[in-house]
């Protein structure tokens, strides 16, 4: 007997330790939550109504005629009113707030709020995914004070009427359940208290045995002895299993309200709270999406019990019981919505964080993804690929904020939801003429030797190597013109002048400038590098072009802004880091020539879609036999890099202009943005150039075009107007 008592005592001590260890430690493995950038709204911000409504839709804001609470918006033409939800950002708690503003020509104007002085408002960021443990569980942990009273009432009325009176086990409830089960001849009623249910889910297995029942009862008593009722109920509310989204289990009422209704628990009406409580009995059996009638009947039972126990009035019961089930057709959980971008985020995170930490500590990852840019890129790619009618064509693309280095969108496959090979990050393909700006930039960095009007020979040549191999570059059209200006060589993407220029500078010098611009890894040491026989991924090209777009300032591309703990305490912040690597004068000349590419050169077809006043700069790229179609270009706000081709490297029949540029211009046509506008460095002066005669001339001459110069225009002849004047006044002026 003594031995038995000792064994039982030891067992109880063991159970007690178990109860306390788990309850006081980390209760759940919380996956890291990954968020898109929070939409910042302020006067002067470029924003269009379509994109705004799309984002509000992602965040499950409801369009209403009159705002009555958070999570709603009203639109009247260009006028918007939004009742923002309360949320937490790394900057701190953001209270719920009503704001109104107008979108005038795609710019925010007149932002105001009846609640507070607001010159700036941030919406909650859209959750784009998580980093999950093997047993995928979604959970939004709530504090007891955050739980609506009506939910607790519904829970108690249905699951445990005497919760605040018993000690963890209710003999009355057990006796009642036994009697009911005996009468029915099968199990029709349970006698478990909420505490016992929690113990069963939290500590024990699903095994049905007397031994487990005994443990359950003992542990429930211990739990109640150690902790107060509110703490136990809070844990129950966050732990209970309430549904399944694919391979992800939905736990807790906080997450369930988002899963079924797309809103916070605080925003749920009584019928919705009752439905959540109804589901507890069997999330699969009472799945309101699959068995709406069954779920509704159970919901109404919950409402009736609430009425019978005095939690709600009869009128409320009748009204809510008559209401239809309003469950979202599709679950909100779309972890795989932006897989290519998530891939980038995970790579950056895993370089700094332990996998276990990412899967269990509930970190919040605030990224740079702009859902508006991402969806625009996806739409543009989809439209272009559909137009090309070739199912084997693939795509990789990256969008970056100019001057911020923030990666705003990534597309890794023609199917934006595809989770496999990420072409934006991993498909290294020859870049073709995308490399040429580096050669011309290297030349322009030597103002005593080169300027935009420097003549380049456009005559075929053959290079013989010591092993007998030869290299004979030719222009795309097979023609050659004898001589062209440096600016023309770049804007028209001529191979012979570019190769000659590269050889003049030397392949090592071109390699060096590519490294300066941000290209890393192994580099082709042969002259073929000069025509783009260098494989890079779209992401690597983005680094290279970001330096050009940001006026010669190198900045690491970032996909993450900040990481905080689950409580909102900052763990890491990723501020901008820059280094000036190219003289501003050389970049100015290069950007000018790259604008000419878009206005008159190989990229001019972009202006079939772009408005004429949107200044952009860019470069097309096509590789041998049309295997790769590239385009990289930027406006004042965005840099976009697009690659199109086939995975098996077969020819595509696409040039850079007919493939990648079409996607790029479709994206840039749709995004509200500022044009590229360059600040002229003090050492740069404009001269007037007559391209036909290849001489400097006067501003009044017809056909004269301004060309920026850094340093002196070497030995360029100057001639008066021959082809007439731009106006009578110009002619008149020439007399003096």
């Amino acid at each position: 007997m003594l031995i038995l008592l000792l064994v039982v005592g030891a067992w109880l001590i063991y159970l007690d330790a178990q109860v306390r260890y788990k309850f006081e430690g980390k209760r759940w493995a919380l996956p890291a939550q990954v968020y898109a950038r929070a939409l910042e709204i302020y006067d002067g911000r470029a924003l269009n109504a379509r994109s705004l409504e799309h984002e509000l839709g992602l965040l499950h804001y409801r369009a209403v005629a009159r705002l009555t609470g958070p999570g709603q918006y009203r639109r009247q033409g260009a006028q918007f009113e939004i009742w923002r939800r309360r949320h937490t950002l790394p900057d701190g708690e953001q209270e719920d707030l009503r704001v109104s503003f107008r979108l005038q020509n795609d710019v925010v104007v007149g932002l105001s709020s009846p609640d507070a002085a607001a010159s700036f408002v941030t919406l909650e960021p859209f959750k784009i995914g998580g980093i999950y443990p093997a047993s995928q569980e979604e959970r939004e942990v709530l504090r007891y004070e955050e739980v609506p009273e009506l939910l607790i009432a519904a829970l108690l009325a249905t699951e445990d009427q005497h919760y605040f009176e018993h000690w963890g086990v209710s003999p009355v409830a057990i006796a009642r359940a036994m009697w009911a089960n005996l009468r029915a001849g099968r199990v029709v009623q349970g006698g478990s208290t909420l505490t016992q249910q929690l113990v069963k889910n939290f500590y024990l297995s699903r095994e049905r045995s007397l031994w487990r029942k005994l443990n359950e009862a003992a542990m429930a008593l211990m739990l109640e002895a150690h902790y107060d009722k509110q703490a136990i109920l809070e844990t129950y509310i966050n732990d209970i299993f309430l549904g399944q989204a694919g391979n992800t289990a939905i736990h807790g009422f906080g997450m369930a309200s988002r899963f079924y209704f797309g809103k916070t628990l605080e925003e749920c009406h009584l019928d919705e709270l009752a439905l959540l409580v109804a589901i507890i009995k069997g999330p699969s059996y009472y799945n309101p999406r699959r068995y709406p009638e069954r779920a509704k009947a159970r919901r109404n039972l919950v409402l009736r019990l609430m009425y019978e126990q005095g939690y709600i009035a009869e009128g409320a019961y009748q009204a809510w019981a008559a209401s239809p089930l309003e469950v979202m057709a599709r679950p909100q959980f779309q972890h795989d919505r932006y897989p290519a971008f998530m891939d980038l985020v995970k790579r950056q995170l895993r370089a700094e964080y332990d996998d276990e930490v990412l899967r269990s500590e509930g970190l919040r990852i605030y990224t740079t993804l702009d859902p508006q840019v991402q969806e625009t890129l996806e739409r543009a790619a989809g439209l272009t690929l559909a137009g090309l009618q070739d199912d084997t064509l693939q795509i990789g693309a990256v969008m970056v904020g100019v001057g911020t280095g923030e990666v705003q969108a990534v597309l890794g496959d023609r199917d934006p939801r595809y989770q496999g090979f990420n072409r934006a990050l991993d498909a290294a393909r020859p870049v073709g003429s995308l490399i040429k700006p580096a050669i011309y930039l290297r030349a322009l960095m030597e103002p005593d030797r080169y300027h935009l009007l420097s003549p380049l020979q456009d005559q075929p040549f053959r290079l013989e190597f010591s092993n007998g191999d030869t290299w004979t570059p030719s222009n795309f059209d097979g023609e050659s013109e004898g001589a062209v200006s440096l600016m023309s060589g770049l804007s028209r993407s001529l191979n012979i002048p570019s190769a000659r220029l590269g050889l003049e500078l030397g392949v090592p010098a071109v390699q060096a400038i590519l490294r300066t611009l941000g290209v890393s890894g192994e580099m082709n040491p042969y002259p073929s590098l000069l025509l783009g026989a260098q494989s890079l991924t779209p992401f690597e090209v983005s680094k290279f072009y970001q330096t050009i777009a940001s006026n010669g300032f190198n900045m690491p591309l970032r996909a993450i802004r900040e990481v905080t703990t689950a409580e909102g305490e900052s763990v890491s912040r990723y501020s901008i880091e820059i280094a000036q690597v190219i003289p501003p004068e050389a970049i100015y000349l290069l950007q000018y020539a790259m604008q000419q590419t878009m206005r008159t050169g190989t990229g001019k077809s972009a202006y079939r879609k772009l408005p004429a006043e949107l200044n952009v700069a860019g470069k097309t790229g096509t590789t041998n036999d049309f295997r790769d179609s590239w385009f990289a270009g930027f406006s004042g706000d965005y840099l976009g890099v697009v690659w199109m081709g086939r995975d098996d490297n077969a020819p595509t029949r696409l040039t850079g202009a007919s493939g990648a540029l079409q996607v790029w211009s479709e994206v840039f046509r749709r995004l509200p943005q500022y044009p590229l506008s360059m600040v002229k460095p003090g050492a740069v002066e404009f001269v007037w150039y007559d391209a036909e005669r290849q001489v400097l001339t006067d501003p009044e001459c017809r056909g004269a075009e301004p060309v920026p110069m850094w340093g002196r225009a070497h030995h360029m002849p100057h001639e008066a107007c021959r082809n007439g004047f731009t106006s009578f006044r110009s002619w008149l002026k020439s007399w003096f």
Partner: protein
Amino acid sequence: MVLRVMLLGWVLAVLLSGCASQPEQGVVPGLADEPAAERRKADTQPKPSAPPVEIPAQPEVNAAPDGAQPPAVTSVLDRASAALTLQQWKQASRYLDQAQRMAPRHPRVYLLYGDYYRALQKWAQARAMYQRCLSLSQPDSEWAHQARFRLADLP
């Protein structure tokens, strides 16, 4: 010669006032005196009727004084400046990051970033930020003067 002078006199008499009001032709791109505040964001809808212009117009960016920026940007920058004065580095950095996202081409953002890094004695970062400020400022603007002055003052 007499004929030329007579012809010129006649032309001048006719066009004296009218010509003066005509816009100048062939303005050098990049020298247009257009304040940033008046620049309109490019309409994203294509205008088929608008032919592509031969010469890219290059309005000066951020040439306007700080007041021409959206008030929200100015407000965030003022807060950053105040935080720097109070040596609240963490807060200052947060405001600067926010301002940089809102107005990545505004020279004042980088001037204050430079001040922030200078205060933390991160000289290379401070230098890079002042250089960025210079690259975005008109050569004779207040921002350019301030950036040059601070660059000269760096160890």
